[in-house]
């Protein structure tokens, strides 16, 4: 199995087309929507985890998306925590869908496991002191060539 997380940017005239359906049906790719922001007549952005039987099948699906004008970027974890700002309240642990932010008991310390983070960014606005941030550094988006 081959699993990667991608940011997909849909041009505004494509937002009414059933891309994801075709990914499943024709390319046999499993998907998990981590974030979706799609507005009719405007650019849409989705963060998807794509899982295929091998790297080639995921790449075939991506090639299909690109042929229809969808811009794709592979996502490394783009969320980071500023440990000087975080005051360890734990509010984020209630909303992180994958347990990348969790409490270590019994100390009740808030731990951020960047390896588990899928980049959904729900924690960014929830953090009362904005300790979680989306990195804008281009290094966080990995070029396709580096795909392992």
């Amino acid at each position, binding site marked *: 199995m081959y699993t990667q997380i991608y940011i997909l940017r849909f041009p505004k005239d494509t937002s009414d087309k059933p891309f994801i359906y075709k990914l499943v049906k024709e390319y046999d790719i499993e998907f998990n929507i981590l974030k979706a922001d799609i507005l009719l007549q405007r650019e849409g952005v989705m963060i998807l985890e794509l899982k295929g039987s091998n790297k080639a099948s995921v790449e075939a699906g991506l090639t299909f998306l690109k042929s229809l004008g969808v811009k794709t970027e592979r996502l490394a974890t783009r969320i980071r925590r500023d440990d000087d700002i975080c005051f*360890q309240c*734990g*509010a*984020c642990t*209630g*909303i992180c869908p994958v347990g990348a932010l969790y409490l270590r008991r019994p100390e*009740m*310390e808030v731990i951020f496991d960047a390896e588990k983070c899928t980049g959904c960014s729900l924690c960014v*606005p929830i953090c009362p002191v904005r300790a979680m941030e989306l990195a804008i550094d281009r290094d966080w988006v990995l070029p396709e060539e580096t795909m392992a």
Partner: protein
Amino acid sequence: MSKAKVQKSYEEINARIKAGEAVVVTAEEMVGIVRDRGPEQAAREVDVVTTGTFAPMCSSGMFFNFGQMTPTIKASHVWLNKVPAHAGLAAVDCYLGVTEPAEDDPLNKIYPGEFRYGGGHVIEDLLRGKKLLLEAKAYGTDCYAAKKMKKEVTLADLPYALLCNPRNGYQNYNCAVNLSEKAVYTYMGMLKPNCRNANYCSAGELSPLLNDPLYRTIGIGTRIFLGGATGYVTWHGTQHNPHVPRTPGGAPRKPAGTIMVQGDLKKMSHDWVRGVSILGYGNTLAVGLGIPIPILDAEMAAYTGVSDEDLFTQVVDYGYDYTNGIARNYGEVSYAQLKSGSIIVNGKEVPTAPLSSLPKARQIANILKEQISQGQFLLNRPAETLPDGR
């Protein structure tokens, strides 16, 4: 031979603190001491128990004076970094409240609003030594001719700055859930629909007023840790309500007592006073607060020996009930359950998350313990105790 019951006075405890002989433990450490040795023996061995809490605390703010200029001004509207302060006190005296958003904030127009900057952030920025834009407008009088003022100020430039919080240190607080079918953004954080998460906000067994449930030692004049400096309890807080159901140990089973506290802002630190933005709700201030409790007798030892297993709060619906003033709860949970990571509500397991920082609360209790052990912090006998409802 039966030993006489322990009775210690504030004077005796302070004498031991000054001599460097006082035995000081944190409220967490006291749990095991009382459990193992009983309250009478614990009272014999321990002189002071330190508590702590660090959480968003609405009803906080800063009194400040910004000094005169030439010609003089009697400000009627004042802003600090575009956050309005209340100027109707005197010519250049103001009060800045922490829930006040910046005047140009979009609020909840783009829902849920982010509330990036408000009164709490102004106070944190002052503590960080930043320069803030102070603006004032006035109508002008013969003795105060100026009609406007604009200058950059730092905390050092302000002749006077007092952190003055009319309600802090809530003795217990609701555990919040959302039984409605859409997500709600509350002061208790984001609550998912259909009761899929539960948020709570108390340090539990470390929380100051939960260790002195009937306000025997915490009262007007009690010296405390406030925002990294020394502060005082100056009154009971707004919404102080001793008339609530209590456990056999005296602990309230729902929100009860509160305290008004104040201290010199200039001596505080941004490590312990933090501006806060709560998504969809607004701004506030996270305050570090710690109170030492003198172990005068076995009763105080028993109170401070309270553990998370003995402390309960109620589960309240913020999807419908809270907004509509419906006094109803969905059962009681202990702080031990809340801290374990999940509770049962309506027969269903619901994950919990705290809004109150336990690592910070523990640090505060330890700082106080250190200061008292080294003879740097003495206890005050309250001039008056808080209303206990009796």
